Each structure stands twice: as C-alpha cells, then as structure tokens.
C-alpha cells in the first residue's frame, strides 16, 4: 500500500489511534498523508507527540485523547498547547497508566478496566465521563473504571516488516503499538523496510517480533517515515528540524512558511526532498 491508499480507507469523524511515544517512532508519513487529505473532525488517541501537534495545527482534530503530548526534548508540544489554550479541540487528558488500561480494555473487548489511578485527583472531577465502580468482593473498594478506548483505525510505524503484516521493533522499547492494533477495527503499519519473512531474524532476535499479521490490515514501506521523530537504530530524532517546527507555534507567519515548505506538498517524496534541501543549506 501507499500512504494515500491508507488515507483512502479513513473517513471524517473517525477515531484514530497512533502508536509510538512522544517524539519516538511515530508513523509520521501516514500523519503527513492525513494532512494532505480533506479529512476532518478526527478523534486522535495517542501517547502524543508531533502527530497530535500537527493534526491540531492543521485543524484536523475534533478531540484529542492522550496520556501526554510531548516532544521529549521539548517537554510540551507547543502546537498542541496552542490548540488547548485557544479552545479549538476537545480533550480527554488521562493519567499515562489509565491510557494503557483504556487500550487494553478495548483490545480485550472489555467495557472498562478498574484502577486506583485517578482517585482523589481532579482528573475524575474535570472529566465527568470517567465513572467509578465498586468491587463486588469483600473489600468493597471504589475504583476508577477506565473506559475502553475503542479505535476505528490504528496507525503504527516499525523498523522492519513483512509485506503480509508482521512487524519488528529494533529500538529499546516496543511502546504500545500492539495494543493500539488490537484496540482497533483495522490497523495499518508503515515500516522503514519491507523484508522477506525468512530474513526477519537477520535484524534482531525473535523477541523483537512484537507485531503479528493477525493485528495488521495493510503495510506501507516508508523509509524515513518516522521523521522527524526517532526511529532507533535506523535514525535518531532530527532535533534541528523539531526545533524549527516547535518555534512556528508562536508565530502564524512562520507556521505558514513551514506549512508551505514541508506540508502542503504533493507527496511524501517531496517532503523528504524539502527536508534534504534544508539540511543541505544549514551545515
């Protein structure tokens, strides 16, 4: 598949989960394809990074559901911050662990999973859609019932994959990409490189084969597809580019220029040409 083929499967108003963590191994080429499309009113569910920031800044987001939205080296995603302060998006702001339970509940087809996280904090006060549940056992404890975060579609990015949908992470952390896939009706996976099944173990041990084709409906080969987030060991985060991106949140003119230069383009290939041109111009 191509990125545009994946986007052709999406509809206005869908709930879309995005794998990775902060500014790490995000399926950015798929996000960029959404930015090029007329899609709107999306609910985005993620341990957020520039995926949520870019979708907010381009008016694609109706609601964001997140454990955080961070660029890692820049603790708060500035485009997301602007969207929250301008009131242009609805938000479901969760404890990081509750977010995991929401995905797990959806993956296991449960309505909710109980947790102590949230008790006593303002989280349950400002989001009345979060309910509590009482243990039916002798303890009778009242717990937060974290609702399932059901996804229409999940988008993830892996280091290696087979054409039929097995995915491999080669960095230090699988994050929650498998849960995103199980929590979704359909999942699409981009990867740095498609390899034959019998070559998967050339790249890492069997422990790195976290995604199986059971979870995936389509594969996109996207070298550099996670740029500018990190995709170790294939490449680190492009900190210079990220800094440039983050700085545009304060200045509509700079944002317009950034958008014209890197986003309002015809294809992913043109994006990489533009990034290379910038990198070549600034030694």
């Amino acid at each position, binding site marked *: 598949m191509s990125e545009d083929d994946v986007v052709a499967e999406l509809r206005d108003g869908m709930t879309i989960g995005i794998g990775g*963590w902060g500014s790490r191994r995000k399926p950015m080429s798929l996000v960029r394809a959404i930015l090029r499309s007329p899609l709107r009113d999306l609910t985005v569910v993620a341990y957020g990074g520039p995926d949520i920031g870019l979708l907010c800044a381009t008016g694609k987001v109706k609601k964001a559901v*997140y*454990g*955080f*939205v*961070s660029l890692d080296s820049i*603790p*708060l995603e500035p485009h*997301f*911050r602007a969207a*929250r*302060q301008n*009131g242009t998006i609805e938000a479901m*702001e*969760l*404890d*990081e*662990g*509750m977010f*995991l339970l929401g995905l797990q509940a959806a993956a296991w087809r449960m309505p909710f999973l109980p*947790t*102590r*996280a*949230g*008790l*006593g*904090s*303002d*989280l349950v006060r*400002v989001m009345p859609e979060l309910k509590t549940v009482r243990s039916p056992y002798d*303890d009778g*404890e*009242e717990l937060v019932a974290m609702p399932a975060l059901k996804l229409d579609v999940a988008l993830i990015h892996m280091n290696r994959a087979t054409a039929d949908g097995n995915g491999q992470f080669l960095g*230090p*952390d*699988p*994050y*929650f990409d498998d849960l995103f896939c199980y929590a979704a009706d359909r999942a699409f996976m981009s990867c740095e490189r498609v390899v034959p099944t019998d070559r998967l173990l050339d790249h890492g041990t069997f422990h790195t084969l976290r995604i199986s084709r059971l979870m995936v409906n389509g594969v996109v080969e996207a070298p550099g597809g996670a740029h500018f987030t990190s995709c170790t060991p294939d490449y680190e985060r492009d900190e210079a580019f990220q800094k440039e991106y983050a700085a545009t949140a304060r200045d509509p003119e700079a944002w317009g220029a950034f958008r014209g230069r890197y986003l309002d383009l015809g294809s992913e290939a043109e994006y990489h040409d533009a990034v290379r041109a910038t990198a070549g111009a600034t030694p």
Partner: protein
Amino acid sequence: MSEFTRAEVCVVAVAEAFRGDGEIMANPIGTVPMIGGRLARATFEPDLVMTDGEAMLVRNTMPVGVDDPHREIEAWNPYRSMFDVVWSGRRHVMMGATQVDRFGNQNIGCIGDWRKPKAQLLGFRGAPGNTINHVTSYWVPNHSPKVFVEHVDLVTGVGYDRAAELGPDAARYHRIGCVVSNLGVFDFETPDHAMRIRSVHPGVTVDEIVAATGFELTVADVPETRTPTDEDLTLIRDVIDPNDIRASEVPS
C-alpha cells in the same frame, strides 16, 4: 573541600529523600533529582534500582548530560513494565511541581480552568497513578509564593487532604515523602499532615522561606540541611555531573 554550592546542597537533600528506601525503583525526574538519586545509590542506598531514562535498568553510576555514557544494563524495563512497577508500589518518584499546596497537592497540568486553560502545562502525566500507588516526593528549583500556593489550580498529584477524603482503604498506598526546594526541605509529619519545614539549606533563614511561601507553614525546631561530605562532592563533581549542569538548575 568544605566549600559547596547551593545546587550541591540540593543534590544531597534529594539523596536524603531516598534514604531507607532499600530495593525499590528510585525515579528522580529533573537534573538535580537525577544527580541526587544517583548519589544516594552510590553512597548509602546501594540497592536502589534506577533507569537510564529510557527502557533499561542500569547498575552503574551514570553521569548526567554526557552523550552515550557507559551503561551496565541489569534489566529491561520498557514503558509497559514501568506501569507494573508503579502499580505494584515498588517505586519512589520525585516529580516536579508547577504548584504545590499546604497538604502536598501537586499541579503540573494547567493554569486556569482545565476546560480552556490559560496555560496548558504538562497535563496529568503519571501524577494521579503515582501518588495513589507509591511514595511521591517533589522537587522545586524556584521556591516562591507562585509555586507554594494556598490552593493549586488543578490537583494532578494527590495530597493528604484529598487522600483523607478517600478514606483509609483507597489511600492506603498514598504517601508524600518530602518536597525539596532550592531553599529547604519540607515534609508532612504533623498531626493534620500540613506542610512543615524539615530543614533549611545553609545560608537560608526561616523568615526567607516563610516569605517565599503562599500559605502558613508549620515551623518548629528547624535544623540545617545536611551539608555534602567530601565523598559526596567528589562523586557529584567528578562522576555524576562533571559538566556542572546542576548549576543551571540552581544558580549559586
């Protein structure tokens, strides 16, 4: 080597926050907390378990702010496993606090109304789950009435009054260890768990702290914060923070 900086006193105060913790995960967040946590393990709490900031648990004393430092990896701890650590209670985290109040409620979420915040901050992040599951302490590098407030705008980390409202069962794993600031150390060891001054840093007066705090502190027999030993200073300066990043968080 008796001369030391305020930042080095803060590092030692952070280390002291982990004293007695034994074999649990110490998770200090921020520059001075990271240096202090590593100092605690390198001196009096050798069994503490610590991460490399990402998915590995490392046995050796790593430096901060150094590219690609040597890591003696002892276990793999991806984010998914981290929540097992949190919910099993085997962890002591030291988080930051944009605001903290008299009963230890912490805000890192936003300023103003959460629905349309004046300033969006980090959000709830791990604070609700941390504070209800295991010991949580706080680090404040800029002690002022804007940080130490009567009421926080949003309770992200649960304080003692909120925990008491939950009752003894729900709050049985809740404990705020201490708050370390650039001026002193604070705890909640009072009958109603209101914040008290545990110690003042050398060169700071109680009056200064009271003036920099937006609520009434409990003050009684305030000792001075322990000063760094020669061993502490060697470890801080030569091993853990050779580039003196601590000074950018707490200027002298």
